[in-house]
């Protein structure tokens, strides 16, 4: 075997070694999730029944359910999405398409990347003083949604920018060449082509938000709530009420946190059951993200 051959063999060997290491890492992380999930489901399965989904918290573990928690989670996530998507996507588009490279955009950019690394409890403290005390929103669904919205804003902005960046410059040039204005280019080309990436980013952001506990505990999400927010539909004029925005709420992670810290074993089973439900919710959101990405990628061919 001469030296060239040896080099080739070594290179191949390294290649294989890396592939195997990568595969092992992949399997290890999958394995950890699988073990955690099965452990949770094994503990919680006897409690996952329809009554569990449609009962309020109770002092008797067998009677306790997650109705107020999952309804709270869903509503808070909706408010989060309504707040963070327009602002986040608009910011991303501005920074990529309009923003000139100067010190202001530099500052914004540095801020965004810094915000992504700020511990979530800091967002809780910020909204405690801003939303709860200064703007007097109280410990409400609105405050919760806005808090989580702030939390995932950097994720949405970054996802928007990344996915706009993958659009080749030639597309923009072609659009201009046909006489389109900047807004027309953005409206008919940039946004449609980046929608897949943006939606993926949004959903990943939302699935992070749905599992957050710390900032919501800081703003005072409550643990015992045995009622649902007031109905958005009213029998009298104006028929639609947004009073629910100011209702107190609880969310899944807070409910789980409360059950875990109780002495009775029955509550620990409840916590495991609720955790599996939360995990399935997160997996579903991520699954939707993957599906959307697939759909949009298939439709666009450069």
């Amino acid at each position, binding site marked *: 075997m001469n030296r060239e051959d040896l080099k080739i063999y070594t290179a191949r060997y390294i290649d294989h070694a890396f592939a195997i290491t990568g595969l092992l890492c992949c399997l290890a992380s999958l394995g950890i999730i699988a073990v955690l999930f099965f452990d949770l489901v094994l503990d919680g399965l006897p409690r996952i029944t329809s009554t569990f989904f449609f009962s309020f918290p109770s*002092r008797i573990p067998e009677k306790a359910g997650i109705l107020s928690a999952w309804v709270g989670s869903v509503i808070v996530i909706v408010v989060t999405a309504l707040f963070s998507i327009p602002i986040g996507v608009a910011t991303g588009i501005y920074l990529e398409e309009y923003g000139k490279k100067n010190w202001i955009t530099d500052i914004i950019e540095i801020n965004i990347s810094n915000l992504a690394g700020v511990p979530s409890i800091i967002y809780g403290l910020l909204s405690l003083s801003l939303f709860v005390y200064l703007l007097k929103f109280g410990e409400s669904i609105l405050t919760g949604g806005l808090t989580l919205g702030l939390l995932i804003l950097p994720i949405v902005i970054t996802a928007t920018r990344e996915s706009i960046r993958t659009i080749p410059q030639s597309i923009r040039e072609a659009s201009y060449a046909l006489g389109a204005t900047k807004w027309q280019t953005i409206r*008919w080309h940039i946004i449609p082509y980046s929608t897949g990436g943006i939606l993926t980013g949004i959903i990943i952001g939302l699935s992070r938000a749905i599992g957050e506990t710390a900032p919501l505990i800081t703003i005072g999400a*409550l*643990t015992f709530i045995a*009622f649902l927010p007031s109905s958005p539909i009213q029998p009298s004029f104006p028929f639609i009420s*947004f009073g629910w925005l100011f209702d*107190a709420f609880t969310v899944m992670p807070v409910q789980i946190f409360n059950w875990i810290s109780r002495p009775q074993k029955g509550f620990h089973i409840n916590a495991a059951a609720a955790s599996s439900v939360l995990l399935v919710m997160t997996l579903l959101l991520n699954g939707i993200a993957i599906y959307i990405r697939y759909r949009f990628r298939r439709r666009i061919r450069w």
Partner: protein
Amino acid sequence: MGFTKENRIKIGSNKGFDLFLLFSMLALYSFLIFSVHAAERVIIKADGSSTVYPISEAVAEEFQKAKKGAVNVTIGISGTGGGFKKFCRGETDISNASRPILKNEIEQCEQNRVEFIELPIAYDGLAVMVNPKNNWVDKLTVEELKKIWAPESQGKITRWNQIRTGWPQSTMRLFGPGVDSGTFDYFTEAIVGKAKASRGDYTSSEDDNVLVQGIAGDINALGYFGLAYYEENKDRLKLVPIVNPKTGKAVLPSMETVMNNSYQPLSRPLFIYINKKSLDKKEVYEFVDFYLKNGKKLVREARYIPLPDSAYRLAEERFRSKKTKSVFAGEPEVGLSVEELLKREQKK
């Protein structure tokens, strides 16, 4: 290249659609902002100690059932201290507390003109626990506990044989509740002599189950928390008898010893504090009334120790006459027996 099917059709279509989209979004958001008005239904807000939480939760659950859902109760767990902060800002109607209100908290309340009614509702024992395999700790005196937990001991008292000669030389592993809990305040007050004075080099957690895990998993562990957590983990923990400084007898905490006052100084009363102004709301009044009438049964169900009947009667009197202020006058006190508490109730 580049065009999706829809776009090819839509291209050249109007600006109108964009404007429509923009305006409808603006309309939706402004509608959101302007059409909001505070919910009209009555909500009773309680917050505070996680120790008292199970009792208040039980009462709230039964109360809502009795009212057929017409009145809603929310309960948070910000800890006794955190609960008083909100209470004295007037944000909550009821504050759950595992210790009497302190001087600076009373001042806070006065500043915000929050008058409160103090009602004892149950007794709780703080249990000191070791690992079941630990065969050397037979009992502990208050002095020994003080040696273990005093701030001066930090970094110095680390081995068992420093507490009592003859005990092993191995390093102690200490577990205790977080500093925002009333349990921590009460224990430090009772043992060290000053609330919140404790060494800092121990494993602390707001979640008592973490402490249970820690003590159950380490032969050199020692920790303290509410008796209810021991009741649920009897096989994994060993209770330590505490020598009552007055009688000199080592006493194990239990329903009986807490009630007959022989387990001292680690028995404590639990309270609810009610904002006097909130009692103008009929629902809050009814809730507190319900609390006192059904407290005894629900306290036992929540694994705490009920006060004697006479105490509940006196609490009810105090509540009916809306007597404000704390019988403790902001001075933290330990080792208060049911009788002493009652005398104070009568005196006021």
